[in-house]
């Protein structure tokens, strides 16, 4: 009997433990994956690892664009248990006031909408309050938002991004591959309170690479400010300014007006404001193009700056086209004066001497009719017709800047050729990609150095008394050179030139070793105040002065030179503005250094004796004479280079060693 009972008990125990084993086997072996995946689904949360879009900086490291994480409160109206209560709570925690949220949510619920945005860009405190709300159907979405801290500054350069943070204009678009980050994903093991215990990366995040532009934020601001003021003052329709460093092609500022704020979503109303007039809207350059004509003449003909050119005493007709001057007729004047007075007839005659093929070649050599390659979408090539389509009147027309259209940027690129000694340097906008510097493109020689030097001297006359850019383009304390342009706007409807102008000024400073090239263009000016010398030259003046100050370029002239003396020394109608030009284009030998100081530079200020002076006294003495001192050490001045009494060359600085 007892044994029977024992057997029964043992059997029950065996069955019980067998059941446990079977269940364990089922859990651990047979259905292991299923239950494990269910457990993971409950415990693991897939979380996005943010990879912010790369920032954009100016050349000095100031932020122009950057992305920030942003949170948005969204609601599924269908899941709200009580819309009125939910709306009231949300209005309170999100500081919405009486925004009528309840009505909006009810309307959304009636329409069957499952996604309703309550508020964008909430603060962390608001986010915490919303998360604490015990309401179903309220969620917080995290995303990245592009910010432009300077508002409309450099808007046409930067462009903008769409809702998915993909670039849709400007550098944002052209550098999309670099700037766009690829978010990663990690799986986070959480406890019952959804606190993270352990995470593992499922996908590696790839943050966007920051881009540093050659743009100088301060200079860009000045360019935009002066451009906006000039456009409004002259009642122009639009305008653009380009500032370039001629030595390496760095675009220091690129402004277009009207402008826009890239922080705002684009609307159809601001389509015109989003047009980049500096590189996307070509125009006839007018007299600015005479620089190309004269450069070609100096290189391809035996014309020299002093060669007399018959500009006539009245309108002339060339190949059925009437040519006339703006005001007065100049008769026979030297070729340099043709540019200084901006004689149309003279330039047309010079162009005829250059010839069709040479003119076409030089127009192309200077980069017109081609993309400059600046990484901003929407660049225009301008318009230079193929030589087969040139008529007999094309050469004189192109010689005075008609029948061609150029962009402000192309004009800046061409003037850089004159400024840097004859080399065509492509505009460079990207200074760095991440930590990697982007070298400037290899320059291409377009002009002989002596030709470029001669052209600079001829262009200097434009900003001197008698020139079309005087006195607006004259820079106090700096030598400058430039060319005005006032091109009548062609009406494609009436097929006639109107009385509206594209007023331009293309200039450079200082003359001996130009550090900046500034091109200013106002489109749609009218009247004499709309000419390039009156409308655009003041913009050049303001921007160039600020650029030279920012770049710490030392003065090469007294601030207020005796104007009358210059005028007396250089009679306008009878002599060249630049006497040195008599020697023609071969003033310099091939081996001469174009960047070497000119003859005037030898008569620079003498170096004072700083010995024994304190640093403050040295700086004050140097500043009073417009000299730049590079102090070293502390105490009193012991040594200096150059020595006292030496003549200071253009751009040269005085090194002073201090010791106790």
């Amino acid at each position, binding site marked *: 009997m007892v044994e029977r009972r024992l057997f029964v008990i043992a059997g029950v125990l065996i069955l019980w433990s067998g059941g446990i084993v079977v269940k364990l086997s089922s859990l651990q072996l047979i259905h292991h994956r299923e239950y494990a995946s269910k457990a993971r689904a409950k415990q693991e949360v897939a979380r996005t690892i943010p990879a912010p879009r790369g920032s954009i900086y100016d050349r000095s490291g100031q*932020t122009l664009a950057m992305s*920030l*994480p942003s949170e948005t409160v969204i609601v599924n109206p269908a899941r709200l248990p009580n819309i009125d209560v939910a709306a009231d709570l949300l209005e309170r925690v999100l500081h919405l006031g009486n925004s009528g949220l309840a009505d909006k949510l009810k309307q959304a619920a009636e329409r069957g909408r499952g996604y309703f945005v309550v508020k964008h860009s909430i603060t962390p405190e608001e986010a915490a309050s919303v998360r604490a709300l015990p309401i179903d159907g309220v969620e917080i979405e995290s995303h990245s938002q592009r910010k432009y801290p300077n508002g409309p500054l450099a808007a046409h350069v930067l462009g903008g991004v769409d809702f998915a943070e993909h670039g849709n204009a400007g550098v944002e678009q052209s550098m999309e591959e670099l700037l766009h980050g690829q978010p990663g994903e990690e799986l986070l093991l959480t406890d019952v309170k959804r606190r993270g215990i352990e*995470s593992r990366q499922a996908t590696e995040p790839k943050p966007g690479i920051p881009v540093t532009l050659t743009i100088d934020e301060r200079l860009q601001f000045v360019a935009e400010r002066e451009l906006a003021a000039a456009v409004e003052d002259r009642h122009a329709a639009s305008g653009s300014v380009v500032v370039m460093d001629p030595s390496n092609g760095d675009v220091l500022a690129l402004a277009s007006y009207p402008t826009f704020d890239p922080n705002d979503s684009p609307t159809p109303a601001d389509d015109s404001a989003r047009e980049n007039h500096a590189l996307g809207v070509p125009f006839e350059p007018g007299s600015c193009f005479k620089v190309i004509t004269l450069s070609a003449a100096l290189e391809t003909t035996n014309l020299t700056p002093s060669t007399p050119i018959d500009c006539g005493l009245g309108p002339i007709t060339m190949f059925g086209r009437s040519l006339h001057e703006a005001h007065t007729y100049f008769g026979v004047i030297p070729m340099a004066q043709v540019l200084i007075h901006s004689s149309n007839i003279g330039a047309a005659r010079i162009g005829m001497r250059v010839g069709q093929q040479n003119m076409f070649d030089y127009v192309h050599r200077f980069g017109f009719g081609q993309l400059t390659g600046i990484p901003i979408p929407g660049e225009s090539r301008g318009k230079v017709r193929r030589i087969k389509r040139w008529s007999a009147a094309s050469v004189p027309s192109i010689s005075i800047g008609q029948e061609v259209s150029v962009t402000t940027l192309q004009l800046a690129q061409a003037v850089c050729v004159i400024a840097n000694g004859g080399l065509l340097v492509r505009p460079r906008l990207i200074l760095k990609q991440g930590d990697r510097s982007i070298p400037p493109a290899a320059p291409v020689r377009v002009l002989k150095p002596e030709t470029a030097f001669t052209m600079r001297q001829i262009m200097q006359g434009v900003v001197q008394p008698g020139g079309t850019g005087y006195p607006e383009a004259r820079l106090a304390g700096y030598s400058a050179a430039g060319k005005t342009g006032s091109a009548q706007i062609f009406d494609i409807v009436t097929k006639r030139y109107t009385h509206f102008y594209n007023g331009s000024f293309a200039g450079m400073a200082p003359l001996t070793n130009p550090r900046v090239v500034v091109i200013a263009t106002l489109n749609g000016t009218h009247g004499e105040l709309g000419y390039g010398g009156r409308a655009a030259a003041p913009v050049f003046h303001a921007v160039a002065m600020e650029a030279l100050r920012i770049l710490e370029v030392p003065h090469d002239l007294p601030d207020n030179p005796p104007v009358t003396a210059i005028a007396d020394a250089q009679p306008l109608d009878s002599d060249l503005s630049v006497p040195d030009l008599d020697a023609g284009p071969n003033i310099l030998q091939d081996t001469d250094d174009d960047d070497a100081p000119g003859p005037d530079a030898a008569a620079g200020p003498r170096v004072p004796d700083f010995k024994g002076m304190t640093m403050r006294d040295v700086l004050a003495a140097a*500043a009073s004479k417009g000299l730049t001192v590079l102090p070293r050490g502390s105490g009193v001045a012991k040594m200096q280079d150059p020595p006292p009494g030496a003549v200071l060359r253009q751009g040269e600085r005085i090194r002073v060693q201090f010791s106790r």
Partner: protein
Amino acid sequence: MATLPAFLTSRPLFKRTAAPRPETAAQPRELRPRRDPYVLRSLPQDHVFFFSKKIDNSRLVREPDPQAKSACWSAIGMASIAVVALACVLVPGAMTTISGYRLESLRAEQRRLVDEHRALDLQEAELLSPERLDRLARAQNLVTPKSDQVFHLDGNKPGSTVAMVKQ
């Protein structure tokens, strides 16, 4: 056996061998003994008697057992080893979990700080915006200094000044 409880004696431990009783065979046996109705019934446990017996065990000494002591220490050692082993097994897991909590907390804080840093960078850029600085400068009647009015002094040195120009 007098000290044994009654229930132990209720059932005999040993079976008695019943001797034949000749008289009982002749007389019919009463099934139940006749009870004297005048005798009081015995109380429960009336037949149990207790008495004390003095035992002198003052000379009794427990003999030390060296094996028991070593066994005791062995047990303690084994228990300690078991505890340590258990700790070795469990503590890393627990520490991993605690570290995981801390790690995730630090990661979250790092992300928050990175975001905050970016927000501060943006705020700095907004504050240093040329347009804002220009507006502030104009409000203070400040003008752009001429080039000969700009002194590049070492701002880190004590006593250094910043040159400003007022209209």
